[in-house]
């Protein structure tokens, strides 16, 4: 329903004389590949601009905790404040960047996901759906499809693969699968990310004890379940002993895809990311090449050795073979480090940033940013080749932009509230 409305609005806007954008909005020159048909019909339009509308999901207060999906006039400067500004969320939420929509999910009276889109220049709440299982991994396929993986946290019940129609915001298909479990040893395969390239769907996972303790008692090779897509048949499980478990609890970034459809995986191998005991294999990076369903035997980065003792907490592919990585150092014998990167307002923040060139296999630490406390999924947004991230600790929260070319971080807009949980953008035409 929303799509047709938007199309209508689009035509309407184009057939009118275009007013210049307001000062607040960021202008982006329209690309040549904008719909030619409409362009023919609207020859009187001298110039079409795409406007980026920014939103930041902010955990705005504690006692009670409240998340606000806050419009931001700029990511680069000023303060983004949820005071009197934005849409209050019903619970502790996760923010997903869709194609021209924002999807927000969390546990209200069941796991609930709601779509937001721009209508008449205003961010407007759309349809919602509920899942029966809590979702721990997801990926946007296209403007109308999203995949979510629901999982139990104890026992060997099937994990649900939900194919979501994001236009109607409903579950199109649910496929139950018990992939990856090791019932003989009492381990449950817990998903960390999902990605689709070509005609395959990849799901990374790690083992947790199935007894409900949420412990990670075993050392495990990097493991990915490979499904056909869109058939969703489990084809095989691939493992690689060069790196341990891929991703971390609720990271949503275990499988990052580059421009060529290759998937890079990162393995944290650290207490601070929730692995106790720490796997003996170093924190590292593997690759699944486009069209393949095996790890690339010729590609492996021993990140700990390369970086001089840092471990990976997150990896964001930015472009041109470069990734921004969020990293930490820890004392593997000190239990205080366990889960230490899940504290956005920590008074002892651990995380710093670096640039990893995946082609030359070189690492450069990023300068200009203070340490940050981390969190569950990470707020991230890429514009003009720069990555915008949340950096927060007990002393406050800000958005920083990281330039992978210069390996520098620059303080951008400040965040009023605890921290930014999602940095999001919807493009509209004017």
């Amino acid at each position, binding site marked *: 329903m929303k799509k047709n409305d938007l199309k209508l609005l689009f035509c309407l806007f184009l057939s009118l004389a275009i007013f210049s954008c307001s000062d607040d909005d960021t202008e982006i020159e329209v690309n040549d590949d904008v719909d030619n048909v409409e362009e023919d019909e609207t020859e009187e339009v001298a110039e079409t601009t795409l406007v980026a509308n920014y939103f930041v999901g902010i955990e*705005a207060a504690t006692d009670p905790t409240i998340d606000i999906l806050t419009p931001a006039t700029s990511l680069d400067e000023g303060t983004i404040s949820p005071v009197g500004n934005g849409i209050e969320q019903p*619970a502790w939420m996760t923010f997903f960047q869709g194609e021209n929509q924002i999807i927000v999910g969390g*546990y*209200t009276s069941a796991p609930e996901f709601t779509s937001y889109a721009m209508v008449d220049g205003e961010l407007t709440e759309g349809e919602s759906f*509920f899942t*029966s299982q809590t979702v721990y991994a997801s990926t946007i396929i296209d403007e109308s499809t999203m995949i979510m993986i629901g999982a139990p946290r104890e026992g060997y019940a099937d994990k649900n693969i939900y194919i979501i129609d994001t236009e109607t915001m409903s579950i199109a298909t649910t496929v139950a699968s018990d992939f990856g479990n090791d019932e003989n040893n009492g381990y449950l395969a817990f998903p960390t990310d999902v990605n689709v390239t070509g005609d395959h769907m990849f799901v990374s996972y790690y083992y947790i004890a199935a007894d409900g303790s949420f412990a990670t008692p075993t050392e495990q090779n990097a493991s990915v379940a490979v499904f056909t897509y869109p058939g969703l048949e489990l084809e095989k499980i691939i493992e690689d002993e060069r790196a341990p478990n891929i991703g971390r609890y609720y990271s949503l970034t275990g499988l990052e895809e580059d421009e060529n459809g290759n998937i890079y995986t990162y393995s944290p191998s650290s207490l601070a990311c929730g692995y106790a005991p720490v796997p003996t294999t170093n924190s590292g990076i593997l690759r699944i090449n486009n069209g393949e369903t095996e790890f690339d035997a010729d590609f492996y980065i021993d990140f700990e050795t390369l970086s001089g003792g840092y471990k990976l907490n997150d990896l964001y592919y930015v472009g041109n073979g470069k990734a921004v990585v969020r990293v930490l150092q820890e004392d593997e014998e000190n239990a205080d480090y366990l889960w230490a990167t899940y504290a956005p307002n920590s008074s002892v923040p651990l995380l710093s940033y670096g640039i990893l060139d995946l082609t030359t296999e070189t690492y450069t630490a990023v300068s200009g940013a203070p340490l940050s406390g981390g969190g569950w999924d990470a707020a991230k947004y890429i514009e003009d080749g720069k990555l915008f991230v949340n950096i927060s600790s007990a*002393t406050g929260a800000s958005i920083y932009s990281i330039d992978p070319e210069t390996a520098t971080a620059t303080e951008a807009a400040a965040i009023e509230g605890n921290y930014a949980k999602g940095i999001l953008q919807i493009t509209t035409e004017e």
Partner: protein
Amino acid sequence: MNRPFSLIILFVIGLSFSLNAQNIITGKITDIDDVPLPGATVVAKGTTSATITDEQGKYQLNLVEGSYTIVASYLGFKSITKKIQVTSGTNNFTFKLEEDFMALDAVVVSGKSDAQILREQAYAVEVVETEGFKNLSTNGNDILAKIPGVNIRQSGGVGSDFSLSLNGLSGNQVRVFIDGIPMDYFGSSLSLNNFSANLLQSIEVYKGVVPIHLSSDALGGAINIVTDQNSDSFLDFSYGLGSYQTHIASLNTQYRNKKSGFAVRLKSFYNTSQNNYKVPIKLVNFETGKEDEEATNVEHFHDAYNSKMAWLETGFLKSSFADKLMVGVMYSDNYDEVQQPANAIGEAKIPYGEVTSEEQKVIGTFSFKKNRIFNTKLNLNAYMVGVFSESNNIDISDYTYDWFGNRELRDDTSVGEIENRKTYLRLHTDNYLGNLNGEYEINENNNIAANYSLNALTIQGNDDFKEENNTQFSDPSDVTKQVMAFSYTNAAFDNKLKNTIFTKFYNYDISSLITNYSGTETEPLNIERKNTGFGISSTYLWNGFQIKASFENAIRFPEVSELFGDGLNIEPSPSLLPEKSNNYNVGVSFNNNFGNSSLRLSANGYIRDAEDFILPVVEGIKVYHINNCKVLAKGVDFSANYVAAKKFFFALSATYLDLRDNNEWLNGVEGNSNSQYKVRVPNVPYFFSNGSISYRQPNLFKNEDSFTFSISENYVHEFFYTWENLGSSEKPSIPQQWVTNAEVVYSMNDQKYNVSVGVANLLNADVYDNYQQLRPGRTFNLKLRYFIN
């Protein structure tokens, strides 16, 4: 347990003395029809002489020659104050007391009842005499909700969780006592929401400043429930029937031998309800993930509650060696089905079908009271209680339920309904409480008192499923709280000005451990804290006006449920620190009686300046507790009661509360400004009001019968349940709520037979308390009561 034994020794010493008596003046106390009033009080003001009348209403008092002011009083009658001249020989003075009618549905006072004497203490105290409520289908919460400054929020039907707030502080910050004993140690089987009005004599509400005899840690005030202290033989039985298969019965009886004072007393009740009220829910089709466009009315199918209690005491009442010496044993239990997570927003899409909690307690009680012990000016009052409880919190279902009560076997039967692991937590708690209070009258205008209280708790348990609970509770955790308190009271200007100063020394000691989610790591936890609190309260009486002012620097230690959780939704937070508050109160009240009518007006203002607030933090459907810096509450409340021609009763109260986040900086880091600074604390009703009108017609059909009709209205202003300054559009809120209740009572044979019919929420309004979970709509109650004295 050494401390309880030292208390026993004190009691034994206290018992080994007895009292002699002489007689100089004698007389009789009767009602206006010359019917003797046994048990009435006669006090010679400004002296230590006081007594009570015998079964013929006769008294004798020893006084030397001179002029005295004698006060004769009896519960339910207006007191008489008379100046007399005592000469040598026998003096005879007879007092005829006029009946002081009790307002049925309102807090009305005329004459000087016990309640008013308490009100005239310097403390900011409200007293509700509950006599008039005994024929109604009410519980302690219903009665308290009519007091200005008090707001009660309940999550569902009969027996459901509730939170009481008093002048802006709420939950555990307000201590509730039964006859001076902290009520929370009686567990969930005995609480304000199931306490039958028939067991009550009065409820005292201390706002912000708590007298030392209620010696405990309380941040925001205290409520003392006084159970029936009737010293005669009586039988009081009632049975109530209500909507949603609610049955409430209470039996309260006492035998006392008038010669020896030997007494046996039973207090008991039984409550049960299915709570199967209907709620509208937009049901979800989990195949498509979509919820219905239209709501379906579905029934709460797993929300039943039942509780029972029996308290048998024996000993001596009003005997020569003790005003009260009773030993008793109490049994209580409680079974509560949990329909949905209490902290979900709105009705849960996936209800619980088998989650339950249950509790059993055996309690031994010992109490002793003797005024003017050894014929001196010393009053002693003491109690000792041992509470032994077993509680189970159970989430072990193999099934998933829908709102029609249909169930489906889960793929994996190792998980429960609440979270992805089952729980069967069994907790065993041993708790010893003791209190010793001594009060010494230096002279007629000066009085000192001391109070020692001890509260020692050991909690241990195991869980068949959840390792985290096993680790947390396998070794016993100990919590000991001790409070030593002293007070001095001075009366001046012919008792018109009274001042009390007091100080309290707190000692808090916990030894426990901290564990992680997996239960694999443990870290010992030992916290010892010593704190000193103090306070002052003053009152001045002038021409029917009373002015009160008080201050307390109050302290509260974390509660068992805050420290150790409940194994289900509340997670343990054993490292909590005590919270502190500076409480300021001022109030003025006015009383006037003219003919058959009376008027009472009161207005109060207060400030609660609190820090290290213990706050529940909801994360998902779980709750844990933190010490969150500072909250500032300011408030005013107002009440008016008017009785016209002994037939019409009007009552009105209103409360406005201003509760603000007082943290200037986030996370305590200077420079990191808090956008919530000075913003109203959410999810707390801040403006509410209550009004009622009653009409009472005695001798309607025949002598000694009476008919009463009353109607009341409650209003709660709309409030946000999240921070009001955040976000800009479509902020969800709890809408304003109007609830109307009506009740009719008919009594015959001088209240021997009573019938009442009540309708709660007459207009079937939507009533929300916790977040957006609906409470039951209109409910009907019928109550029959038989009382013989």
